[in-house]
Structures are given as structure tokens and as C-alpha cells.
């Protein structure tokens, strides 16, 4: 077994998660930001930090995570629609961050991390930030486009599919749906049903020759 690629042990991971939790609590205690250390229940049962924050504290928390805690990688943004949800949680935005020990390289060098010797900020760690939003028609959350470059297109996609507005987001446009989609059409909202959602017309025309799409007029 070589010195490369030995894995981060569970104890390292646990310690790092607890450090992050302590730092967050010491910084944001009593401001509605709730943090906890959770464990994945799949393969290796690794620990990660789950933070729940109200939207008004989100930008301050993001800056602090990025520049003080060294969370340098915004991996995914997930928006969810809860039509029957409670008043304070009709929508939810979930950010997933990774802390990666990435540094720029001098020419002709490469960084070989020996996982057992990693400590402090160099230990990779997962963060999950949940932002519940009011149950209204215009869910809005402050953007972190200028803090993580990786959040840019993720937020575009979240607005395009789910319809959550990111205020302050520059150059917002539809990335996946056609540009001529009707205003306010965000397909992942729960009021939109998929075709044949009640499974009736599915088996009328097995070969599908005679079938025409429901939106035939919109193309050509």
C-alpha cells in the first residue's frame, strides 16, 4: 500500500465535524442558526455538519463559512416546494458544500496528502445548509453567487426548475428550459403534473404512431 490515497479515518472526520460545530455555535449562537453533526447511514457512516439558517442570516453565514472556515466548494443547490407545508416552510433551499484541501501548485509539483497527517482545515468535510422559506408565491433567498463561483449556475438551474428567486443574482436566465418558456413556468413546482400522470392514456396506442404531443402547437 502506497502513501497516496489512504483514507480519512472516521475519528478524524468526527473530530473535524465537532470542531466545525463548535466554531459555528460560538459565532452564530442565538441568531436562529441551528447546527448539528449528523451521520450518513450509507457506506462508511461518515459525519457531516447540517446547518439550518433563516434567509436573513444566510449571506453573513456564507461569507463566514467561505473565508473563515475554508469551505471552498459549492457542490449543489436544491430547491423544494412544499405546497401543503407549514407557513414557515413552504419552500426549502438546500445548499451542499464541500471543504476540499485544494491549493495552487508551483510548477512541476503536486500535493500528496497523507490522510493520517491531515488536521484542521485540511480535513475534507461536508456541509449541508437548509434555508426554509415562507409559504408564498414569491420565494426569495439572497444569492451567494459572488462568494462561490460554483453557486452561479446551480442557482440559475434552481430558479429555472423550481422558481426560487435569488435576489442579487446577476445575469439570471433559463439554462435548461427553452428560452421561450412561458413566464412563471417552473416545472418542478408541485402544481405541475407530468403527462399521463393518472396512467390512463399510456396504453392506448402502444406503438405511439397516432399519438401527438400535448404541446404540438408550440413547436414549428
Amino acid at each position, binding site marked *: *500500500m*502506497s502513501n*497516496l*490515497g*489512504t*483514507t*480519512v479515518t472516521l475519528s478524524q472526520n468526527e473530530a473535524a465535524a465537532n470542531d466545525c460545530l463548535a466554531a459555528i455555535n460560538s459565532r452564530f449562537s442565538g441568531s436562529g442558526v441551528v447546527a448539528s453533526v449528523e451521520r*450518513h*447511514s*450509507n*457506506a*462508511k457512516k461518515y459525519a*457531516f455538519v447540517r446547518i439550518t439558517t433563516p434567509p436573513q442570516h444566510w449571506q453573513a453565514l456564507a461569507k463566514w463559512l467561505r473565508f473563515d472556515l475554508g469551505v*471552498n*466548494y*459549492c*457542490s*449543489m443547490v*436544491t430547491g*423544494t416546494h412544499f405546497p401543503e407545508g407549514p407557513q414557515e416552510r413552504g419552500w426549502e433551499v*438546500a445548499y*451542499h458544500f*464541500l471543504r*476540499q*484541501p*485544494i*491549493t*495552487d*501548485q*508551483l*510548477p*512541476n*509539483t*503536486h*500535493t*500528496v*496528502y497523507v*490522510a493520517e497527517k491531515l488536521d484542521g482545515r485540511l480535513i*475534507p468535510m*461536508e456541509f*449541508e445548509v437548509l434555508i426554509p422559506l415562507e409559504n408564498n408565491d414569491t420565494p426569495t433567498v439572497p444569492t451567494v453567487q459572488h462568494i*462561490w*463561483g*460554483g*453557486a*452561479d*449556475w*446551480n442557482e440559475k*438551474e434552481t430558479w429555472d*426548475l423550481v422558481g426560487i428567486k435569488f435576489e442579487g443574482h446577476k445575469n439570471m436566465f*433559463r*439554462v*435548461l*428550459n*427553452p428560452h421561450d418558456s412561458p413566464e412563471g413556468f417552473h*416545472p*418542478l413546482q408541485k402544481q*405541475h403534473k*407530468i403527462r399521463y*400522470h393518472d396512467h390512463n392514456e399510456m396504453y392506448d396506442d402502444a406503438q405511439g404512431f397516432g399519438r401527438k404531443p400535448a404541446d404540438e402547437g408550440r413547436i414549428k
Partner: protein
Amino acid sequence: MAQMWITMGPQHPMTHGLWTLRVKVDGETVVDTEAELGYIHRGVEKICESRDFTQVTPYCDRLCYVSAMTWANSYIYAAEDLLEADVPERAEYIRLISAELQRLASHLMWLGAFGPDIGNLTLMTWCMRDREMFLDLLQELGGSRMHYNYPRIGGVKRDIPVGFADRMIAKVKLFERRIEEYEMMLDESTIWLVRLQGVGYANAEEMVEAGVSGPNVRAAGVNYDVRWAHPYSVYDEVDWEPAVEKPTSVKGADCYDRYRVRMEEMRQSCRMVLDAIEKIPGGKNTNYANGDEMIYQKAPTRAPEGATGFSNYECTRGASQFYVKGGGDGRGKNPYRLSIRSPMFITIPFVAKTMIGYKVADIPAIMGSFDPCIGETDR
């Protein structure tokens, strides 16, 4: 010559799929670029909300058409996180082997598509030809050439057949020789070097800032790999090393570095499967029946409202992540919300900006060296 916009795509040999790259050129020099996606947006996330957890796997197979197995595994880990399923170790080994074979096939497909970008047509047929070896192996497992629907929540669909181990060892050992043939043809060809070296610089921190991951970041000299940072399978028990590159410039990794790091990843995958097939518990030539507890443990099929599952998986193009919310369909049989994070969706806009300042002839080299896959990008 005056500056003009050129629209490359959606049907263009460079794009490796369906997307549009709008390039503003001044003579032969690229001045500005715009990427436009969404030509094969299928709405998988919406459809999966009306499928139960087992029915989602075929859709995850079809997310990326050259690395179906890794994407299916990625979803399976998220679902196991959600449903709290336990996986027998033999199944984990089989998943590792299948994923690494798929990684070999995917990198071969990348190299085969990368050759014509530079103008070398022979490379395409060579790589597709060697890829068939691994497709045959995966076909023995999954039964299909491309979309296997192989992993199950709590195990795998069926055990490795008898004699699979010998065939796999023979083919992988043969392929290790073939890698050296490729390097003999490419690395020692001056034209190949002058086309790739010093083209398409991108350094590590910029890429991580923009959300790029996987081999493209490892080419810039940092060995961040999910397989050792957040190990999800038995990667900590088999013998391997992350392929890391030494960029020759402060500006970061160029196309040649990315090419080299993928060739090296193929070597490491060969090494990994050769070691894993020996260490597999239960013996490499025994075939357990479907549903045997050595390869499959029954998992709960319903997830309560509010339960979430998350998986971070080293796919062939970077970190692919799934975020699953339970409690859909009123009874918890379906995911309430399934969110897919595709590495290429974030990489392609970054690559489009990377091309600025290079020649028009460098666009395919840069784009191909980042290994785009539009199926997973548009979802």
C-alpha cells in the same frame, strides 16, 4: 478581419453531444464565448418523483451514456443513506469492480472522442475497439451493453458469473499493454505534444472556485479524490493511488496534463480491479444465487417524510451527487424530491471561459480535454 460570432452547435463535431458554444473570434483568436445548454433536458428529476425508489435506477443509468454504472451506484448510495440499508461486503466489492470497469470504458470513450478532435482518426477506432472488451465484461454482469440497471438498494442484482474473474484478469492485463501502445503512439508524436502542451491553462483554485472536480482538478496537481476523502465503498481496502499530475506552469494544468491524468487513472483502475478481484470475500469463482445474503440484503422500500439521503460519488468526470428527500406519493414510496448534481453542468461554462485567448483550432482540444458529457449535463 473584423470580429464575428460563430455558433458551434448544436450539431457540431466538437460538441460531443447537443449544446451550443457561441464563439466571438478575431481572425483566428477567440475573444469571447458563451455556452448554451438544455437541448436534451428530459426532466428526469420531475419524472423520478412519480417512480418508486427501485424504478429510479434506470433513469440514473441513462443520465450519462458512457458511465451508466457509476451514476447508478451514485444514486444507490443516496438511496441507501435515505432508507438506511446495509450492504454486504461482497456486494461492495462487486460494485467497486463494476464501477472501475465502467471508468475504464468511459475514459476509453473519452480518448476515442479526443483523437478526432486533434485530428487523429485512428485513435477513435482503437479506443472503441478496446472499450468493447470492458463492455463485454459489464454485459456479463448487467446483461446489456450500456444501461445495466445492475446495483440494487442493499446489494447488487446478481453475482459475478463463474469464470468472470479469469476473463477480467486476462483482459485487464492485456489492456495494460494497450495503454503503453497508446502512449507510444501519442506521447512520442511531436504533433500531439505541440497541439496539447501549453493550451487551455486552468489552475486548481480557479477550478474549485468554479465547481470543477475530478480528474480535471487532479490534473492541476492536487489529489483531492472522493474515493479517499469521503470513501463510500471498499476503496480503503484495495491497492490504488489517485492519479495526480504535475502541472508545468504556474497557470495550472493544460490539455496535456488532463490527457495524462486520465491515462494514469486508467492504469490505477486496472490495478484496483486486479487487486479487488483477489480480495473479494466469498471467493472469486463462486456464484451466489440472486438475493443471497452475500450479495443482497433486503432494504425498506418506504422513507418517512423529512428523511433525506445524500451521496457524494467520484464519477468518471468528477464528483456526482444525489440529494433525495423521502415521503413522496403520500405513502413514502417515492422520493418527494430527487436532486442531481452533475459535474459537467458546472464545468462546461467554466471551460467556455477557459478558451478565451486561444486559437479557433484549440477549441476542440480544450473542450475535449475536459471530457464533456451532455446527457448528465442537461438531465
